[in-house]
């Protein structure tokens, strides 16, 4: 259950076996079945979720009932709503599972306790937040300045593993285009490949 988390942490900081054993006691094992929610909009995002197995998405729904996908998460990724999590405010996002998923959840209090118990985790979480900040900046820049085709190509490059696991309609929503536009882009690219 904890093998992937162990590898994930050791890529960023060194931990002894005893420290890792101690760290596992702060994580809540949680199974979320396909189509079930981890977070519903309007609730506070109480957990940062590390994905051990499965595939999830976070999204908002606008007034016209359209879904807008903010993030996908597969194995070795984290998902949550950082604003809601750190500010203890209701989230505008919902998070649900595309596949039966196995998660390790970390609530705010446990994150603080973990950092106090093993101060190396301060660095671990700083590195995670740094990566999250950079990814968010890139996504904003792409939304503002890249064409739909460029965004699609970047998505393929950055997230090849997700592409085969998520319906095209969901990918279109993530890219901010209609499914029809995505089909056109794919046809265009395959003709010029």
């Amino acid at each position: 259950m904890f093998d992937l988390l162990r590898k994930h942490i050791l890529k960023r900081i060194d931990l002894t076996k005893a420290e890792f054993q101690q760290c596992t006691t702060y994580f809540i094992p949680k199974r979320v079945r396909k189509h079930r929610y981890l977070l519903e909009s309007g609730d506070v995002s109480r957990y940062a979720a590390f994905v051990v197995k499965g595939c999830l998405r976070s999204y908002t729904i606008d007034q016209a009932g359209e879904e807008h996908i903010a993030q996908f998460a597969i194995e070795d990724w984290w998902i949550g709503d950082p604003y809601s999590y750190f500010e203890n405010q209701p989230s505008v996002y919902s998070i649900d599972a595309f596949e039966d998923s196995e998660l390790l959840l970390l609530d705010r209090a446990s994150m603080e306790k973990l950092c106090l118990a093993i101060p190396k985790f301060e660095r671990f979480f700083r590195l995670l937040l740094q990566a999250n900040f950079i990814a968010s900046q890139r996504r904003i820049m792409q939304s503002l300045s890249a064409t739909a085709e460029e965004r699609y190509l970047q998505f393929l490059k950055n997230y090849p593993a997700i592409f085969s696991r998520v319906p095209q309609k969901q990918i279109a929503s993530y890219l901010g285009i209609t499914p029809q536009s995505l089909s056109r882009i794919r046809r265009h690219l395959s003709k010029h490949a």
Partner: protein
Amino acid sequence: MKQTVAIIGADEPDGRILALAFANAGCRILLSDKVPQRAHALLSELRRANAQTDAEILDCARTSCWEADIIIVASPFASRDEVIAKIREVSTGKIVAAVVSSSSAARQYARSLPHSRFVSLASAGAGYVLTGDDDEALDALRRLLEAGGADVVPSRPSAGRQHSSLNQ
């Protein structure tokens, strides 16, 4: 969001009472029993009480506890070791409430699940005395059970306010 509650020992009298209370409180209920067929009568009863009840039977106690936010152990104390072996790995950080008849039984559960937020449930007339060190867990359970129509009395072992049925 709707809380998911796993009931282990769904065929026991306390399992039935607690399942009905949590279902009344709007929780999603996962029932498991050593003999899964025995949980079917309770599932039917939950659905008769409220057709909208989100409840199902899972064959495996470990799987239901893995999926749950709150775990209720209503099975007999004699099966404690077997139950603990199944749920220990998936109950870290979760509220685990066990129906007990003595403070010694409560201590044994608490010792076996050191990383869970343990609460003991002792029958007291028509309701339950809730005892535990984790105030948040006690409060969360109390609120849910009261919302489901159960009588509850929260208590803390260190405050010396245990219900008499918990004292050996």
